[in-house]
């Protein structure tokens, strides 16, 4: 909970009295984590920053469209459109509207991807990373050259800001933009007191003109479809992070988001299994592990070669099956622990 300096102590105390009732929720979440992934302070901070930035961008965009395209002249809405304070964020947070599974998984993936990008930059410079795509620009196949250029443009857009975390509305998958837009519309309506149709129309326009293909991940996936079969070498230092993940996803049948999640897990075990399934050599797998790993852990040739490829393939196939099915299976297999009070 953020303290608002504009509010008096009495009001703050009253508000704190309400929120403190949730201390057991917060404490339980910290005390009894359900996943094996360790959430560092940096991850949490970056996640918060990312979410704030995205909410701010969507909010601003809706207000600007409402004002410019639909002639809305409401003062408060114009003010929201003109500054980048992220007015609706505290409202959405308090109402628990930012706690949906799909949204939080997306935020975590983005933050972990940033983390991987930072790890990669310890091994190779930004300039070198950009130059890895340049080799595709001269490809005789114009489609490959165009796809490489599109990815370069998307990456330079991501890197243009000075913020620690790169958040851009263009990179959002349709489901995430959809899931955030309507709660933000409701929050802006509540904040402004405006109840007319123009905010909703602006939201519809924002959603209808959103082009997923402009996102960095999508552009990397498109380039991966073109170049993967032409280029045997698969490595983050050879492809850059986005193209590497997209190519690995294409080859393994897993999604890019799953692969990013795997990199956050202890010893990146599932990523290692995926590499084994893809018949990567021990040297290649160890090298990729070394580049992506951030906790000082090592993958040894012996432990990699020990992995039974067929068992690994069965597991990877299972992980690449329908997410809803996997989720249902997991819940059904969770032992019933009785009712909590």
């Amino acid at each position: 909970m953020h303290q608002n300096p504009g509010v008096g102590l009495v009001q703050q105390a009253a508000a704190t009295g309400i929120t403190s009732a949730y201390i057991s929720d917060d404490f339980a979440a910290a005390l009894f984590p359900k996943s094996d992934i360790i959430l560092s302070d940096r991850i949490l901070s970056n996640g918060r920053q990312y979410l704030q930035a995205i909410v701010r961008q969507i909010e601003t965009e809706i207000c600007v469209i409402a004002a410019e395209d639909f002639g809305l002249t409401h003062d408060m809405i114009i003010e929201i459109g003109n500054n980048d304070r992220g007015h609706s964020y505290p409202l959405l947070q308090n109402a628990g509207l930012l706690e949906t599974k799909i949204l939080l998984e997306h935020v975590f993936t983005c933050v972990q991807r940033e983390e991987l990008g930072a790890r990669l930059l310890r091994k190779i410079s930004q300039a070198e990373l950009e130059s890895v795509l340049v080799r595709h620009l001269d490809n005789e196949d114009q489609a490959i050259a165009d796809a490489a250029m599109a990815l370069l443009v998307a990456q330079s857009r991501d890197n243009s800001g000075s913020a620690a975390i790169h958040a851009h509305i263009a990179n959002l998958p349709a489901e995430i933009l959809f899931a955030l837009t309507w709660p933000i519309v409701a929050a802006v309506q509540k904040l402004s007191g405006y109840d007319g149709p123009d905010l909703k129309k602006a939201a519809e326009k924002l959603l209808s003109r959103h082009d997923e293909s402009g996102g960095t991940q999508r552009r990397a996936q498109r380039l991966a479809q073109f170049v993967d079969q032409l280029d045997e070498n698969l490595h983050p230092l050879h492809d850059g992070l986005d193209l590497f993940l997209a190519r690995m996803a294409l080859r393994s049948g897993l999604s890019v988001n799953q692969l990013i999640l795997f990199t956050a897990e202890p010893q990146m075990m599932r990523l290692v299994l995926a590499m084994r399934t893809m018949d990567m050599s021990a040297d290649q797998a160890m090298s990729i592990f070394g580049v992506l790993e951030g906790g000082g852990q090592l993958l040894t040739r012996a432990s990699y070669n020990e992995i039974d490829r067929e068992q690994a393939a069965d597991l990877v196939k299972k992980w690449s099956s329908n997410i809803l099915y996997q989720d249902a299976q997991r819940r059904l297999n969770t032992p019933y622990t009785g009712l909590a009070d």
Partner: protein
Amino acid sequence: MTITGNLAEPVRGQLDADGRLISADPPLMGLHMRAGGDENGPLAVPQLAELCRLSRQLDMVLSRPVQAADDDYLINMWVEIRPLSDENPGTIAINIIDWREAPVSTARGEILERQRDFERLNGRTSIRTDASLRIMGLSLPGDLGSVEQYIGQSLLDVFDFVAPSKQTVLVESISERQPVRAQHVRQRYGKKSCYTLSGQPLIDNDGLFSGYRFTLEQEDEPETQDTDKEAVTDMEQDGLISDSLFGSQLGPALRQPLGKIIANAETIGSRLEGPLRGDYSNYAKDIASAGRHLMDLVNDLSDLEAIQRANFTVAVDDIDLVDLGNRAAGLLAVKATDHQIRIDPPDKNIKAPVKGEFRRVLQILVNLIGNAIRYSPDGSVIKLRVVHEGDTTAIIVQDQGDGIAAEDQKKIFEKFERLGRSGDGGSGLGLFISRRLADAMGGSLTVESAVGKGSKFKLSLPTRDVTESEPDLDQS
């Protein structure tokens, strides 16, 4: 399959509000029909149908990669799904702007074959059984012909246990789903070869026991010990070993502790068991590296002893040098890639049938290509070519290394001759063993080289009569 590459014009289709494919360009319609769809029926390509549902639900344009299987092909598409809310509410337009077809990867099969080559090279194989120990798959090195008759039989019917190992130990381990370690067994039929049997239980996706995967490592025949007095004498004269047979006694006795040293040193070096000071970790890595070097030396010495036995013989298999050249290149592909070296194997479309022992020819080629990688500059190319020469057929391994001076070309085939090189992991026995093996198979191993111009090692073996259906070198 007619479409390849990106499309000049997108493949289009349209779904009505009920999800039926009301129009589609021929490639999409074909895919839909082959996926079990009907004309004007619901879109039958699940990946596309799911995207259409999502697009309709969100009323948003989606732009995503889609992969669909079509017979033996995988189709990678880039698809744009657009709801046509303004024109016809509920209608969805499908635009496929990239459509790439590729045969389903055979990499898995190639990898399995490569794994089997490694096992054959090391005299090892694996057996997969079901939960009742019935053999579901196996291949025995040197006894390939009898493989099929074992499939379906119980493992306990195929192998006898040799003391001190007992069948009861195996049965107990299996009943408790425990790993089986180093049991001595002998084939009940065929060549009655002896093996060391180890196995791991297999657990399926539902967590149920589904059988075992056993590894068999061929042992040297105990009865050969009494017949090798000449070999012992040779070895003693060479000062190689004192009074025991290396291959049958000292070799296995050394391999086991060396294996443990290497494994433990790797574990320590990689800090799997906990944090360790950096220099200690490096010491452990040095120990592992030295252990591997010693293990190679033990293997070479075992081979050296074997080929020096008076009764040393090789099997006469019908083999193909092109096939073996490709297999050997595959086994060393990773090592070559580490040095950015490209191995150019012989053209798989031609045949070079010869007579020789599969495992030994593979061993020679791995040695020749391994040497070529070791002594070639990074980024160079190693060429493998086959030539037909009268009654023999040869495979040539040509590298772009420093070459060998004329006066040294005889020396390299001598025991422990390293031409002054050291510290590169070689034992100085590889070429000596390879030449003796080639001689034993009725062939030869020669070198042609000049300083600064690389080397060409030529392995010649007796040509085998070709059946009419096989095109040979002359025809290609």
